[in-house]
């Protein structure tokens, strides 16, 4: 706590005159107050972050009477025929969702940037508003909207070959449907954020590119998008974290699918089934740990590649 040194303290240390004056008090004070400031949050972090993770890890390697069973729970869960299909479902969904998010959000943000200020602001607002319906509401709305019988775009749905609600919520369509719902509720705020990040690129840079003869597309591809890299990585990480935990969507659609969609469609649902239907908390914890490792691995890769958290210390 004494020797860690803030930037100010380090500067102080290199200048003898200042060092004699105050740096010690400031260093110590800074440390102690730092602890006070983070105390409340640290307690929450321990109680609702660290302890549950540790508990999940512990449960995943023990049996119901608390004896260590090594990887027994994992091999048992992996052998469950529902496990592979749940992860295949979620993998397909995540692929669709992340690609559409990356391509469409960045495209729209760039298209909306630097044009017609008021129109652009209005469009951004319209894109962003559906976020208010995230969760069960959005699923409910889209369940009705995708029913060709009642949908205002019924003819479009029929043109795609979807003639009845049962046909629409058929299991093979679910990744697409969840992507549509997730995009409807989630893309808007990212468009707004990307747009804001584009504002952060200095005008001189864009102007210089234009003078060098770069068109709008060239500017976007060579300058704007590379400079958004950090934000895109940030978006994908959070979208992955959110997408991997899909629960409410398949749960509700399962209810409304006339028995076509099993209630273990996503890994989280399967984990829930293990815990609350089969009362097998150890198996459920094993699935939770698999999800945890997967998402942390991806997050670490993205953080490392995008250098997301290196900035901002000085």
């Amino acid at each position, binding site marked *: 706590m004494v020797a860690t040194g803030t930037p100010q303290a380090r500067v102080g240390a290199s200048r003898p005159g200042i060092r004699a004056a105050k740096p010690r008090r400031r260093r110590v004070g800074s440390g102690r107050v730092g602890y006070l400031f983070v105390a409340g949050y640290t307690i929450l972090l321990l109680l609702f972050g660290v302890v549950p*993770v540790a508990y999940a890890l512990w449960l995943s390697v023990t049996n119901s009477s608390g004896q260590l069973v090594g990887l027994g729970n994992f091999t048992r869960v992996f052998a469950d025929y529902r496990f592979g299909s749940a992860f295949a479902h979620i993998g397909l969904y995540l692929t669709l969702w992340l690609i559409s998010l990356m391509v469409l959000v960045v495209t729209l943000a760039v298209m909306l940037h630097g044009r017609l200020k008021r129109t652009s602001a209005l469009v951004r607002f319209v894109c962003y508003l559906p976020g208010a319906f995230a969760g069960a509401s959005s699923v409910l709305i889209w369940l009705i909207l995708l029913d060709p019988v009642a949908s205002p775009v019924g003819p479009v749905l029929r043109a795609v070959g979807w003639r009845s609600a049962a046909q629409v919520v058929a299991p093979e369509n679910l990744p697409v449907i969840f992507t549509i719902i997730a995009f409807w509720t989630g893309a808007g705020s990212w468009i707004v954020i990307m747009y804001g990040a584009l504002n952060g690129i200095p005008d001189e840079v864009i102007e210089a590119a234009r003078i060098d003869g770069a068109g709008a597309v060239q500017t976007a591809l060579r300058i704007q998008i590379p400079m958004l890299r950090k934000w895109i990585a940030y978006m994908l990480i959070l979208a992955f974290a959110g997408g991997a935990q899909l629960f409410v969507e398949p749960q509700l659609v399962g209810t409304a699918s006339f028995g076509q969609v099993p209630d273990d469609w996503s890994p989280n649902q399967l984990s829930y089934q293990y815990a609350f239907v089969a009362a097998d908390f150890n198996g459920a914890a094993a699935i939770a740990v698999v999800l945890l490792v997967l998402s942390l691995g991806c997050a670490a890769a993205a953080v490392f590649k995008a250098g997301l958290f290196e900035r901002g210390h000085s």
Partner: protein
Amino acid sequence: MTNPSSIASRVPAGRNRAGATSVGARVAWVIVVGVFVCFFALPIVWVLLAPTRSDAGIVHGAPLTFGSLDDLAATWRHLYDFQSHAIVTWVGNSALYSFSALAITLVTAVPAGYALATARFRGRVALLTATLMVMLMPNATLVLPLYLEMNALGLDGSRLSVILPLSFFPFGVYLTYIYYATTVSGDLLAAARIDGASEWMVFWRIALPLARPVVALVAFFSFVHSWNNFFLPFVMLPDSQQYPAQVGLNNLLTASPMFNASSGISEILRPELALAALLTSIPVLIVFLFSQRALVSGMTAGATKE
């Protein structure tokens, strides 16, 4: 709203010199943006109109039209009567959970983000790393172990079992941290310290007022996150009197004969479901209406200074 002719006349002024924007590009712009606007806006228009119609009207009538106030009143009556005004209870519960969690989040997350960005203390990097890890972790990963933990504490089934985990919001700490690290100059804080201000005064008088955009941002994300959370209350709360709106909607959907032929209830049809979706989203909708500016200024304050 700008009409197409002024698009044509205004855009080229800045761009045509470089020959960047052709007529074709502008037409493509309008089409692409138009398609997306329809995609985002149509469902909202629908959900606003559907409660004013009867179910038969939605199925057989012209799409996206206003029904009548009588139909709206009937829709509301059906919804209100469901499980003796459960809808009101659910929205009230959501408000209780979200605001309680929000208060605890703000009190803990903002000082923590500030200290992580401006102070140097042992354990800082570990705390920052842990925050990042938990932030990127799917919430649902923790729901089951949280349930067992609450069970051990004797809190499962209580409202606290939802409020407390929701008030742990590492994303808020991260946002505050990023904001202070990139936007608020260390020199400014150092100057205040040299002037003899205590660390607490520096935070309270200088850092906190500067952070208004990010406080709004954290409040916004925390509120929306709590309001829209489904899995946690779904697992924790056994009693439908305690359900928040999101879990209540699940109840409503299950009860609707549209999706469950064996349901004994016949009143919960498309207009009622649309109205329920709308009512349970109104608080977030209101926050959204006023928060876009906070969102932009908060998120971009970090970006502009880099």
